[in-house]
């Protein structure tokens, strides 16, 4: 059959296209990492020498380091709150077939479908009316609103794919509700919880449209600080701090995957 030859022509052409595509996607990212190591005082090509001076700059320029810590704290806390509130919700709604349950599920997933700018802006005025002034608490609330859908989504998917027989078996064997949850449900659902939490953490670290509205001198997140820096200066310190942020995200992903096997999930 000539199918073999024709398929491989199609395959090689597509292959070349995809290779270019990969270059397109990874190019700018790799470029930034490379630029972060330049020894020059500004961004220019070709790169003459390499040094770590811009990484030192991160430590020197206090707002970078402070905001990085704020971002990390914020991501962790909002993810935890998201889990506390979202996991019971997802478990309660996952297997119910009532109209109310599916409406509520959609409702819990809704925040990520709304333009974050609108949500951030709205939350600012609403929270200001509620709590005097903006603060870290407002940031936490806002990021938790975004964390809940990510966690709900993955937990819903994992719990639905789990057979209810397991929990029934545990019940017949004498397990009351808490015991069944503790010994059977939660261990099975754990990868879903952590996958969702990782999504929540990663998007929280990167979030600009919401965090932007809650900036004060002490509670700025890293993306906000980076943005204002970039509007005034165009130097490789942005490259350095971006690379650090990327490394942290990669580390979080790798660690959670190693311990909780989330790569096995096909959560979109």
């Amino acid at each position, binding site marked *: 059959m000539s199918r073999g030859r024709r398929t491989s022509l199609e395959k090689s052409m597509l292959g070349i296209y995809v290779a270019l595509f990969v270059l397109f996607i990874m190019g700018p990212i790799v470029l930034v990492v490379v630029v972060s190591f330049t020894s020059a005082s500004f961004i220019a090509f070709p790169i003459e020498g390499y040094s770590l001076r811009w990484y030192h700059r991160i430590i020197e320029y206090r707002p970078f380091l402070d905001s990085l810590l704020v971002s990390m704290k914020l991501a962790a806390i909002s993810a935890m709150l998201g889990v506390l509130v979202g996991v019971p919700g997802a478990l309660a709604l996952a297997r119910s077939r009532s109209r109310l349950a599916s409406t509520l599920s959609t409702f819990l997933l809704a925040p990520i479908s709304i333009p974050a700018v609108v949500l951030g802006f709205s939350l600012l005025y609403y929270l200001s009316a509620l709590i005097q002034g903006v603060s870290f608490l407002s940031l936490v609330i806002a990021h938790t609103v975004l964390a809940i859908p990510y966690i709900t989504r993955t937990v819903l998917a994992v719990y639905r794919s789990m057979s209810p027989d397991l929990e029934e*078996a545990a*019940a*017949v*064997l004498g397990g009351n509700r808490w015991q069944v949850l503790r010994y*059977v449900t939660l*261990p099975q659902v754990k990868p879903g919880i952590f996958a969702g939490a990782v999504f929540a953490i990663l998007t929280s670290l990167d979030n600009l449209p919401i965090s932007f509205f809650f900036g004060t001198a002490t509670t700025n997140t890293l993306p906000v600080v980076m943005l204002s820096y970039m509007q005034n200066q165009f130097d490789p310190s942005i490259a350095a701090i971006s690379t650090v942020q990327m490394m942290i995200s990669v580390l979080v992903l790798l660690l959670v995957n190693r311990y909780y096997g989330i790569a096995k999930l096909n959560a979109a």
Partner: protein
Amino acid sequence: MTPSPVELVQISKRFGTAQALSPLDLRVEGGELLALLGPSGCGKTTTLRILAGFETPDTGSVHIGGREVTDLPPNRRGLGMVFQNYSLFPHMTVGENIAFGLKMRRMNRSDQVARVREMLDLVRLAGYEDRHIHQLSGGQQQRIALARALVTNPAVLLLDEPLGALDKNLREGMQFELRALQQRLGITSLMVTHDQEEAVTMSDRVAVMSQGHIVQIGAPQDVYARPLTRFVSEFLGTANIFEGVLGADSDGSPAVRLDIAPDRLLPAAPVRTLPRHGAKVAVAVRPERIRLTHDRQALAAQVSAVIFRGSHYAYEMAVRGRAEPVFVYHQDHTPVAQVGENVGLSWDAESAVILSEAAA
């Protein structure tokens, strides 16, 4: 331990607009294995789940060992259950799976270990404590599931299509093993299955269900040889159903004039009450009870197919006036008739069951 009887009194259940169980009464005697047999949708699984406590009945009550448990959750009913796909906890070892019930009862660790070892010996898988579930074959998983269900000495054992996931060869062996274990322990058991061979092999009594009702209940031999309705006769084994009119032969015993052979009287017997003389009846005859003769008074037929089935020969007989063939089974290694041969079909009264008018 004295075996506990189980009683379901006037249990009914409705799902939305569908009546899954019409008010139903069922008693399982202490120590017996009763099989609920029927096609999907007949209500057998719902009945089991109501007994287990996963469904609540709309009406009626559930009693185990004389104690009413209708309002108790599944974990307080003292049951053991083997699920269709075993439902072994994948994140635990074999030992942890079996010990689960003991752990829920807060038995101390060393007692747990001893008891787990006992159970593994019982199912002939000694030494498997530390294996992981995915390392086990289907048959082994089944036995672990059984061990896990029995470890707490439950009053009643529930079996939900326990052998459905095994392949055929394994299934037969497991049928005997499971039954032997149940009898040895003397544990009251309720089994749900759609496989009539399984029901007949393993149970003390079988209850045939259809559309939320128990149509017939009794020892497998009884239900098989003396089905009450068309449905039972066709669900349990193969049956040839004939329509006719009830009459009597020369010495007054019941006989039937079949519609397709009104000139003859063929023997028949009722399961319970005899309908009145002249009534229209349906008669069920098992293929293995039909004899081939050259008697002129027998039903005339012509052999249309001879099929070798391994343990027996199946013959398809064409009978004039009847569209579907009459099946005859004969156990032998060589066929007793050839295609095209004209034969006479006869049977004794005990083999032809007059079915009740009550629905198929």
